């Protein structure tokens, strides 16, 4: 018995099919290339930074203050400044951000005031950070006479990340199924009991993840800090929120803008430290998300 070619698809259809598959393969290759473009560029950047900076990264670098002499210069003031700054920023932005999100998502009725608030928050999320720097300078540094302190810096950073925090926290709250709220209300729970016992625990991992990512954005911000005057020579570790400070990206910027080649390497070493801080924050976010995938229990 001889094999007969199937009557379908027709020769014309088969030709078209070949062309369609060819198109599909070409696009797949294109998308793969775009994916790799980002990865490769990032790897090149990191590679260069590590190549330049790793030799300078030692205990002396971590525990010294800035100096005119590259071999004596270190990052201690900036590192502690950043840690203080992020700690204080978290302290201000977490309760305010979650509070605002809870109000808008769980309490607010649909009326024009709330609509205006929502539109404004969305717009603020897209405002350039230098604008927050100007605001911080006028409001906190001068208006409230906080001076060029950590407190002024942290308040400015809090303003900067609040819109993002609020929007992301609202999304986390919205992801909690309405059936949980209904179950709670039907048992005679008040709105606050419903939010506190059921909605917030369910949304908290999402909220914390988004806040941590917002904080890591704040860590890398330079412009608002320059604006409020953190670009100074600081030869001490901050002891309290009213102390003057500098931060990692500022120190890096400072070194990178000097003519000597050694300082450029110092900038690279500082970048490694900054990346390490960022990565540990992101790791915390991933850990929280991982933990939340398991069943929550009381």
């Amino acid at each position: 018995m001889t094999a007969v070619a199937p009557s379908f698809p027709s020769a014309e259809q088969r030709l078209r099919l070949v062309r369609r598959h060819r198109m599909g393969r070409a696009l797949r290759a294109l998308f793969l290339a775009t994916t790799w473009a980002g990865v490769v560029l990032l790897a090149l950047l990191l590679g260069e930074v590590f190549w330049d900076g790793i030799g300078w990264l030692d205990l002396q670098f971590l525990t010294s203050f800035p100096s005119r002499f590259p071999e004596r210069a270190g990052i201690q003031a900036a590192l502690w400044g950043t840690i203080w700054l992020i700690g204080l920023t978290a302290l201000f932005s977490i309760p305010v951000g979650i509070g605002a999100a809870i109000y808008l998502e769980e309490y607010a009725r649909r009326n024009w005031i709330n609509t205006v608030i929502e539109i404004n928050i969305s717009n603020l999320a897209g405002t350039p950070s230098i604008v927050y720097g100007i605001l911080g300078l006028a409001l906190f540094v001068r208006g409230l006479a906080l001076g060029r302190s950590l407190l002024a810096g942290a308040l400015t950073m809090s303003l900067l990340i609040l819109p993002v925090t609020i929007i992301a926290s609202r999304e986390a709250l919205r992801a909690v199924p309405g059936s949980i709220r209904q179950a709670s209300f039907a048992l005679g729970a008040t709105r606050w009991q419903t939010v506190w016992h059921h909605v917030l625990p369910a949304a908290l991992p999402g909220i914390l993840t988004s806040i941590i990512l917002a904080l890591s954005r704040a860590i890398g911000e330079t412009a608002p800090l320059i604006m409020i005057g953190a670009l100074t020579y600081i030869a001490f570790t901050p002891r309290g929120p009213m102390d003057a400070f500098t931060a990692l990206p500022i120190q890096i910027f400072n070194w990178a803008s000097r003519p000597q080649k050694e300082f450029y390497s110092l900038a690279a070493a500082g970048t490694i430290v900054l990346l390490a801080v960022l990565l540990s924050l992101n790791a915390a976010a991933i850990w929280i998300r991982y933990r939340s995938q398991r069943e929550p229990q009381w």
Partner: protein
Amino acid sequence: MVEEKIQTTENRGAGVTSPILETQNLLIRYGSRAAIREVSLTIPERRITAIIGPSGCGKSTLLRAFNRMNDFIPGVSSEGLVLYRGEDLYASEVDPVDVRRRIGMVFQKPNPFPRSVYKNVSWGPAISGFRGNLNELVETALRKAALWDEVKDKLDSSGLALSGGQQQRLCIARAIALEPEVILMDEPCSALDPASTARIEDLLFELKERYTIVIVTHNMQQAARVSDGTAFLSQGLLIEYGPTKELFTRPQKRETEDYITGKFG
């Protein structure tokens, strides 16, 4: 006055006991659209009353009016009266939180909290200030919901780890734990398999010894099997209301007959 209402033809209800819930000329609107139109009926105590009708006829809206769950839906307004033991549930001095504590509800899809079985049952009493033996209360509620034997060894495991039918009985136990007089059920078996449905229906017979049950169902066999009285709604109107046997064997209205024989709906 209340007794007279029961005697009227379209309002005979399930029979002899005194009414625990009553609506008078109830009208509920979503925005400008009327979902419930001039419905007057009485729900007798310790009976199972079924509300049936085609999709969108307003039966769930009517059910939620009894424990003020409609309050959460934006744009809902109502006129007329909803009475619980003769008291207006919508009077300004009535706290809806208290209404919901006294009138329990079971939803269409089982919705246990993502917590332990124990916590699911104990949470309601705990937040409303129960001072007593919680362990005992949890066991009693789970026994009444015919779930105790299946979960007594896994009180600490998640309520979500139970089967669908068990989850729904857990939700019933959760409602019972608050010792309500009325339990509202919104198509409680529609997400369950036939075996689980049969268990819930058996449970309903036991529960009506102590509780008044109002059940919305789109399953007419279920209404015929479990309920004492049946109300038939269509397009927000109460078409017919009477003892279940009579309504299903000798419907007074043509529309009712068409619906229960499957000609529309």
